[in-house]
């Protein structure tokens, strides 16, 4: 029982960290440029497909480096020749631009790689369960552990880069007072381009790492995209710490929800009540938690909206 719970916790944590890899890039871009990048999950999907293609051509490890680099270039190009042009018309056209972009990327992916899932596999070196956890009675794939390590490493690098480097300080300053920073002689549009490219590269890295842990298919952007938006709203718009808490929360919710057979009927059973099979609410009460697992993140969203519309750690309304 305890082992199963620990293993589910690890699964949930690894999924949550992957979500946070996406949410952090999205939050960074949003709080800096005010742009909600609708195509962020599409970058994640592109990362996964690039990861698949390059690991077919030259193996997983080069792919791990090349795909994020390519996505950095794509992201920077999108900012330079697309977003910067739309920027003059305000935030809604910016959002719509990235929305249209996500539409195009899904189609392009289908043109190039087909409409079904591709066989993007975990590298042979990392296949199989973790030995020392197995000794403790917990079966947990090595690759998931690697995924967590990549996420933590990436986040540490991001934090160091933002807090400890000169460029990071310029970025933070441009976040708060863009005009002031521009007056000091920094090229703020170029900083924006850099941030957007970095955000895309982070999403790409998440894609390379997550694509083979889950499924690499054209629908992946849609499924993950909605969840990442939920993460950001639940955590509080523009708050990295909030996004972290929300990601882990949703990751755990998913992994525990999936294996639980708790249902309304069972809860009533504990209270000594039973539901007649022809009762009007029977279909609702008979649903087990594992069946409603896909809806759980959204229910969390609804709950947070009712109790705390700003989000867990959000500070601003708009």
């Amino acid at each position: 029982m305890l082992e199963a719970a620990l293993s589910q916790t690890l699964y949930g944590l690894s999924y949550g960290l992957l979500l946070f890899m996406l949410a952090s890039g999205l939050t960074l871009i949003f709080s800096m440029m005010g742009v909600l990048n609708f195509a962020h999950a599409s970058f994640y999907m592109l990362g996964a497909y690039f990861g698949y293609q390059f690991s077919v051509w030259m193996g997983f490890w080069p792919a791990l480096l090349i795909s994020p680099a390519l996505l950095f270039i794509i992201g920077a190009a999108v900012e330079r020749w697309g977003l910067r042009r739309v920027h003059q018309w305000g935030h809604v056209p910016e959002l719509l631009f990235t929305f249209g972009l996500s539409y195009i990327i899904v189609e392009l992916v289908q043109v190039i790689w087909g409409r079904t899932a591709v066989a993007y596999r975990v590298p042979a070196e990392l296949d199989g369960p973790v030995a020392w956890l197995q000794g403790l009675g917990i079966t947990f794939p090595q690759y998931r552990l690697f995924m967590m390590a990549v996420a933590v490493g990436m986040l540490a690098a991001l934090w160091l880069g933002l807090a400890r480097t000169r460029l990071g300080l310029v970025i933070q300053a441009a976040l708060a007072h863009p005009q002031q920073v521009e007056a000091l002689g920094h090229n703020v549009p170029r900083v924006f381009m850099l941030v957007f490219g970095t955000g895309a590269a982070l999403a790409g890295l998440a894609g390379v790492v997550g694509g083979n842990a889950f499924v690499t298919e054209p629908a992946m952007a849609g499924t993950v995209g909605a969840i990442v938006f939920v993460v950001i709203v639940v955590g509080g718009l523009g708050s990295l710490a909030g996004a972290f808490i929300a990601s882990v929360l949703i990751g755990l919710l998913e992994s525990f929800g999936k294996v639980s057979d708790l249902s309304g009927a069972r809860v009533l059973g504990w209270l000594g009540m039973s539901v007649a099979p022809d009762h009007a609410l029977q279909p609702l009460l008979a649903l087990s938690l594992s069946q409603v697992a896909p809806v759980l993140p959204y229910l969390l969203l609804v709950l947070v909206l009712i109790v705390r519309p700003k989000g867990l750690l959000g500070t601003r309304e708009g």
Partner: protein
Amino acid sequence: MHAPRELRFRPLNLGRWLVWGLTALLFVLLPLAFRQGFALTLMSQMGIMIIFALSYNMLLGQSGMLSFGHAVYSGLGAFFAIHAMRAIAGGTLAWPVSLLPLIAGAGAALCGVVLGFLTTRRAGTPFAMITLGIGEMVFAAALMFPELFGGEGGITGDRTSGPPFGGISSLTFGPQIQVYALIAAWCFACMIAMYALTQTPLGRIANAVRDNPERAEFIGYNAQRVRWLMLILSSFFAGIAGGLSAINFEIVVTAENVSAARSGGVLLAAFIGGAAFFFGPILGAVVFTFFAVALSEYTKAWQLYLGVSFVLLVMFAPGGLSSLLLMNLRALKFRKFGRLRDPYVGVLAAAAGMALGGAMLIELTYHVTLDAGQGSVLSLFGFPMDTNAAGPWAFAATVLLSSLAAFAFYQRGFRRTWEAIQQEIENSVRDNPA
């Protein structure tokens, strides 16, 4: 002294009567001009989409709410309608089929009351994200109750099951032309109702909330409540569109009617037409349905074309087609269009070349990846082409690159003339106010 008589100046608004009269005439004349079954299906779907896109624009254009989950309301409305239709067939509900959209609209509005309360708690970007999340939630939840939503297969109904319309035994909504008439009538009524709504105090205060919520709050309006009210009304009309689609197709499927793709579709339609004008979404709905129904008959890549046109519009004409149209009409009215004619010829010819070359490349690639099983030869614009030969690829690339170069050359002159003309018009409007 008696109280001064209240003076009112209410001229007959001839222009408005003319526009609405012509619209009604168009609805009547269209099926006479296009008699084929396909045209009728297309026009029926256009009518449904017009209502849906207009209801969407009540949010986007009039209240400044960018929603990514509007299909929830049309989809749930469609489910209300199809269940009511089954109840009519089963004899448990006495209600004419022609008024089914009313049930759908009321049901959708009810959903709007509940879900809208959640979504409209935030405005702006959070609203967009929340609607996306709520949309996904409703979609996933609907799949969990196959008894109610029919699961993967959907729920079917029979539109001819009710009593005939007006007691005339041949008017049972069996033939498509009768369905078209029903849709046209509802579409016309909804257009008038939604236009009338823009003229009411609520419609006006929604514009104020869109432009400056803080000021609207200072003059005593609760911005959140205004957004909520607009969303409820908008979901009512979306529900009518959903109800009509239930009558039109006689089947409602969760994966289609409540999907994120449909929410995205209505957003594209409204924006392509132009959210700033009332008639914009009508134009957009016609164009979008043409893409989705007519073009999808010819090519699998229609969504790619739609996405590319959408992104180009966002980048270069964020006002949509209607604003492009009006700007050109204005140039015409100020007798400056002649100067634009020659630049237009160059730019449009180059753009057509780009579209041709690009479309050829896309079609060839699509054929290679998706239809490889059907051999290497495809028919493109009536010409057979072999994807294994270098010729078609080279031709397409040449057309694309040369017209790209031509476009880069011509667009400079066009832009200069265009900007000069718009500036001149603005100056003359400012100097001689009407």
